[in-house]
Structure formats: C-alpha cells, structure tokens
C-alpha cells in the first residue's frame, strides 16, 4: 500500500478533528529541523576565523546584532547575550571551541528571539578549493511550539525560515566585509 502524503494529511485531520488538550510537557516538537548554509569568501581562512572565532564580538560582522556581552571569551561554557537590532535577545553558550579546525559549537537558551527550542549551532571555516575560505554554518533545533498543531508563527517552517535568515544575512555581510577592498 502506498499513499500520497498530502492526501493522508487531510485524512488524518478529519479523523483527528477532536482537539487534544496540549499537555504541560516540556517536550519539544516531534521533528528536529536543520539548516545548513555555506559561503565562499575570497580571504584567508585565518582572517575569516579572526571574526567568526571571536564569540563575544559577532556584532563586528553580523548585521542583526546591536550589542553583546560575554562572560568568558572563547572558553567552553562562556555565555554571550546578544541584543538584536530589531529588539529581543539571544543567550548562547559555547559547547566546543577548536582553533585548530576553526570550528565553534554553541547552544542557545530557549525562549530567545528566535521561534525555536533546543537550538544548537556550529560554524566552521575551512580553506576553499581554489583558494579563499569556505564558511559553513549549521543549526539543529525544534520549532517554537512544543506540542502538536502549532500556530503558523511557531511551526517547523517558521523555525527554519528564521534560522535561515540569520545564517544567510550573516554570511553575506561577512563576505562583503572581508572582500571589501
């Protein structure tokens, strides 16, 4: 037996028309989402890492950040608080930092400015084929609404769109800054 997924979705809606009371569970949504964005920059990897690897000063390159405070520089466990230009803030903690491989992993506290939960991210700089640098930024997260039947602003799509926006705008500005003659 095979079925069309969209068709099944409609069927499921009709069969489960009785709304389930959302539980008080602290559970996240059922499906973890991911975003992976990559950009090539005509600059030496070390020069890119100077910006990307400075956890407490991403405002130097990310256009959405207004100001930052950081507790412990680039040490594992260091926590930064980002005030965003559009309002709201993000609180993020370093999970792993490796200057050798130019990679940084961090996780965000829930209920920040992004419509996500259980958000973790990694950014890495590598030498690009043919010169310059390749920067990869990847994130893993659940949608903002923890139970079934999320409102549109807190569904999987909203979460993916928000994180994609953070990554693409940040990487585009990073490239523009570093390639500026």
């Amino acid at each position, binding site marked *: 037996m095979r079925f069309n*997924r969209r068709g099944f979705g409609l069927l499921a809606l009709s069969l489960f028309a009785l709304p389930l009371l959302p539980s008080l569970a602290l559970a996240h949504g059922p499906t973890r989402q991911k975003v992976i964005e990559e950009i090539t920059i005509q600059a030496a990897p070390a020069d890119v890492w100077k910006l990307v690897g400075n956890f407490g000063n991403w405002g130097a390159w990310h256009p959405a950040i207004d100001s930052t405070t950081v507790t412990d520089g680039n040490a594992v466990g260091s926590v930064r608080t980002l005030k965003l230009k559009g309002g709201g803030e993000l609180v993020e903690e370093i999970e792993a930092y490796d200057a050798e491989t130019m990679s940084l992993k961090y996780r965000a506290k829930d209920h920040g400015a992004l419509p996500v939960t259980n958000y973790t991210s990694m950014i890495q700089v590598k030498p690009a084929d043919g010169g310059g640098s390749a920067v990869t930024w990847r994130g893993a997260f659940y949608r903002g609404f923890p139970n079934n039947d999320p409102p549109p602003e807190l569904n999987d799509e909203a979460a993916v769109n928000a994180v994609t926006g953070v990554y693409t705008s940040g990487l585009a500005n990073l490239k523009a800054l570093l390639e500026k003659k």
Partner: protein
Amino acid sequence: MLIVAVVAGMAAAPAGAEAPVPGARAFITNQGSHDVSVVDLDSGHELRRIPVAAGPAGVAVDARQGRVYITSPDGRMLTRIDARTLEVTGTLELGGGPVGIAVDAAGTRVYVSDWYRNQLMVIDAAGLQLLARIALGRVPAGIAVAPDGQQVYVAERDEDRVAVIDVPHAAVVAHIAVGAHPFGLALSADGSRLFAVNVLSNNVSVIDTAQGTVLRTVPVGNTPYCAVLAEDGRLFVTNQHGDSLSVVDPQAGRVLATVPVGGFPEGIVADGARVLVVSWMDEELEEIDTVSLRVVRRIPTGHNSRGFGAFLWRPGATH
C-alpha cells in the same frame, strides 16, 4: 503497486530454496523526507526508499517474521513493512506523538511510547490493533523489551527515570531513578543489564534489572542519545553534540575510547564485529569496525535520518 524485485546485492540462493535469501538490511527512518531507506548491508547500497506517514523516527524489527515497524510522530501513525518484499503490509493510526518503538522477541506485541499523551500503547502485531494504553510519566521515549517478553522498560525523559511495566498485568510496577533526561535504552541479550542514556547529564546509567537498581553511572560524551551493546560486551553510545561514539566498558564503568563519526549520531545497532550508526546531520549510515574503531563505510540515506530503534534485520535471526 508493482513491486520490482531487487536482485543486485542479494546473497545467492541456496540450492533448493524457494526464493533468494536477502542479505542483512538496515531500515533507516528519514524524518525529513518522510520515508524509510532500506540499505543492503552486503553491498552497501540503498535498495529502496519506502514512503511512510510524515516525519518517521522510531523503528523496530521482528526478526522472526521479517516485519519492520515504523513510528511517524508527525503523521501520528504506525507503519508495518515486510522486510523481504519491502511492501507496506499495514498501518495503524495512533494519534498523539508516537516516537519510541519496540517489538517483543516473539513478534506478537509492539510497544509505542506516546511523547505527548504520556502513555505506552500496546499493539497486537498480527492484527495491528491497539490492545491497551498504559499511563506513564512525562515524555516517554526509548523502549526495551525483556527477552521473555514479560517486562517492558520505558525511559520517562522528563521524569529522569525508567518505568518498569509488567506485561501480563499491563501495569507499571516500578520506577528506577536515572540521570537527567533519559532517551535511548539498551538491554543486554540476557536481559540482566539495562542501559539508560541520559541526554542532559551526559552519562549512562547501568541498571541491574533483577534488583531494579542503578549499579553505576558512566560519564560519556556531549548530549548522548542512544546505545547498543556489542557482541564483545562493550557498550557503544552515540553523542549527538560530540559527533562521536563513546566506547564503554560497562563493568569497569569507564570510557575506553571515543570514535569521531558524522554530525548528530543517533540510532545505533550492533552486528557482529561492526556497529552501524545513523548520522542525522550528514544523512548517512556509517559502519564502524569495532576492532579498529574506525568508520569503514558511509552510505547515504534520505533527509534528516534518525534510525531511532533496532533498525537491523538479518534473515534467519531469532531476535
């Protein structure tokens, strides 16, 4: 739908056999592409991608009857697949958030944890009918079934404990306190040791099932998720944020080695001298040689692959 027999990669048919005997297969749930990747482990090729209800995550295999069971938390559905023909042979609408899944060794009962409604659903495997709902604590996740099928263990994630269910009475008979946010469970072949993987406390609780007590707690990597006991008695644990496996001596209670693998390793099974791990971030099945502790093969899967459960089928195996 016409099923086209896939011959490539199958073992040669023994003389007199009615049908070719397929090699071992992995059934990997792809939560992002809403299908199941069937990987032939002899050839290392993906045989088929089987569409299922939205967002499949959990998987269990009844080795005897060659049946594969899949949970779809988004589609709120259970799907049964024939491991040989790769046809979908039944579905059951469950509602809620079906995530964890296990089947008993006899292949008669399927157990599904309901992430949202805090219950264990007991399903008759042959008829695909819901037999019972057993109330559980908050956010039930991984499930293990005792070899004799008389007890079922469920990780109650947000209660930081494991529920012990007596099958004949369909009732929770005990709770075992473990670390913070247990998710995956693993059971030794004789059922005497249960391992609870604690996501937030970065450790594994080693449980004596006869006593219902935690013998020791072993620190592992960052954000561990699932575990499996290899043939040689070592425990292999996937570390989601560590992008690694911790190889644990469960007797000594220490990590023997850490093996770098793909991003966000999740489901893991053991098969002789190898373990097979699903990388959610890199979307592949990785084969690790348990002697050299190296990744020896990487096989692409569908999107956002999870493989949460015992996803291996080996024809002729009894469990």
